[in-house]
């Protein structure tokens, strides 16, 4: 593949948004046709089976004490009361929020910096894209396995280096702070590439004349970043922030593999606690109430995400 066509292919992802806007501007109103419902029907049916019926069942669980399908007592909102006041649940909620906040604070600046530093022309573009994207395509449990091994003081390079090169006492299986740091670094390792790729797509969609003008004015690299690149990244960064917030808020697999929620409750995030109650203890009622409160919170986030996405498209 020639250098030119690589660059064009690389730019495609970045300019898709612009072409969409252009297409929308050409024909602002789509034809109204309620028969389109027939095209959507398969999706509605399949998602109804996998989402609506289960959710209804969760609602039913949440108001009863279920011993078996034939032996159950209606308890009203009792499970909601006990779950909403459970110190363990509240602690997990706060823990998850703090984790999400830390994830954003680390990954967004790092991702943007990375995108700015990434090569934008030449054969190295593809190599860089592949290298950066690789962690994203690793199964989440394997991400856990990689760090489970890498951060161990006895067999992992990372853990070994911290103990023997830096001389710090580091063991994520015993110390809560170490476990938290391990999970956080793992998440940064895993997901910063996503922020970087989104920001990179945003950078590539900036029209060249902006840079030419800046070059004529003799603007410094920092000025170019601050006044040309950063403002133009607003759209993609909003998407990145919301995506990262929501996905880190439901994190399960990676910390489950590395720490199993421990030591103690140190890395017991909402999903880990919920699946412990649901599958581990099989407490249908509390798990149902917990699920619904969790789901409610995610719904709100989701609506914000959707509103931002559809409004920025206009």
């Amino acid at each position, binding site marked *: 593949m020639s250098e030119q066509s690589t660059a064009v292919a690389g730019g495609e992802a970045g300019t898709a948004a612009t072409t969409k806007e252009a297409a929308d501007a050409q024909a602002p109103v789509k034809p109204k046709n309620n028969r389109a419902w027939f095209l959507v029907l398969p999706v509605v049916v399949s998602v109804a089976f996998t989402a609506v*019926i289960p959710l*209804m*069942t969760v*609602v*039913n*669980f949440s*108001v*009863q004490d*279920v011993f078996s*399908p034939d032996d*159950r007592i*209606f308890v009203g*909102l009792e499970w*909601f*009361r006990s779950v*909403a*006041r459970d110190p363990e649940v509240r602690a997990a909620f706060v823990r998850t929020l703090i984790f999400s906040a830390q994830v954003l604070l680390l990954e967004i600046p790092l991702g943007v910096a990375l995108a700015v530093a990434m090569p934008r022309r030449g054969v190295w573009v593809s190599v860089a894209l592949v290298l950066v994207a690789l962690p994203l395509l690793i199964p989440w449990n394997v991400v856990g396995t990689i760090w489970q091994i890498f951060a161990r003081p006895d067999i992992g390079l990372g853990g070994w280096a911290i103990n023997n090169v830096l001389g710090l006492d580091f063991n994520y299986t015993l110390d809560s702070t170490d476990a938290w740091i391990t999970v956080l670094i793992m998440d940064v390792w895993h997901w910063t590439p996503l922020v970087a790729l989104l920001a990179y797509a945003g950078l590539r969609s900036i029209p060249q004349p902006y840079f030419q003008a800046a070059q004529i004015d003799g603007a410094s690299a920092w000025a170019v970043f601050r006044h040309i690149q950063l403002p133009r990244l607003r759209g993609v960064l909003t998407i990145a922030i919301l995506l990262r917030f929501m996905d880190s808020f439901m994190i399960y697999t990676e910390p489950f593999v590395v720490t199993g929620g421990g030591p103690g409750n140190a890395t017991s995030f909402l999903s880990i606690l919920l699946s412990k109650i649901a599958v581990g203890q099989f407490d249908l009622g509390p798990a149902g109430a917990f699920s619904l*409160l969790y789901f*409610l919170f995610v*719904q*709100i986030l989701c*609506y914000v995400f959707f*509103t931002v996405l559809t*409004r920025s498209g206009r």
Partner: protein
Amino acid sequence: MQWMVWTLPTAMVFAGLALLLAGMAIWGHFSPPVARRGFLRIETDRGDRLYIGLISAAVVLAGWIAVTDLSMWLALACALAVAIVIGVWG
């Protein structure tokens, strides 16, 4: 359907939601919704406001049960009030 462990109250809630959706669909057929801007500062049509209202009502209920022992009927009244305010002026 045995494993879905239905109860009368939850069945009524879902039947109510289904009726609400059907009602909105029929209403929308006879007088198509118009998007406008209310005190929420975003453009919403009545379907959006219904959704935001329901979610806000649920938040009120959840918050109520988490902090106070006062009657849930009172909470329900507050939640409905919030939903109506959002539905009409949101």
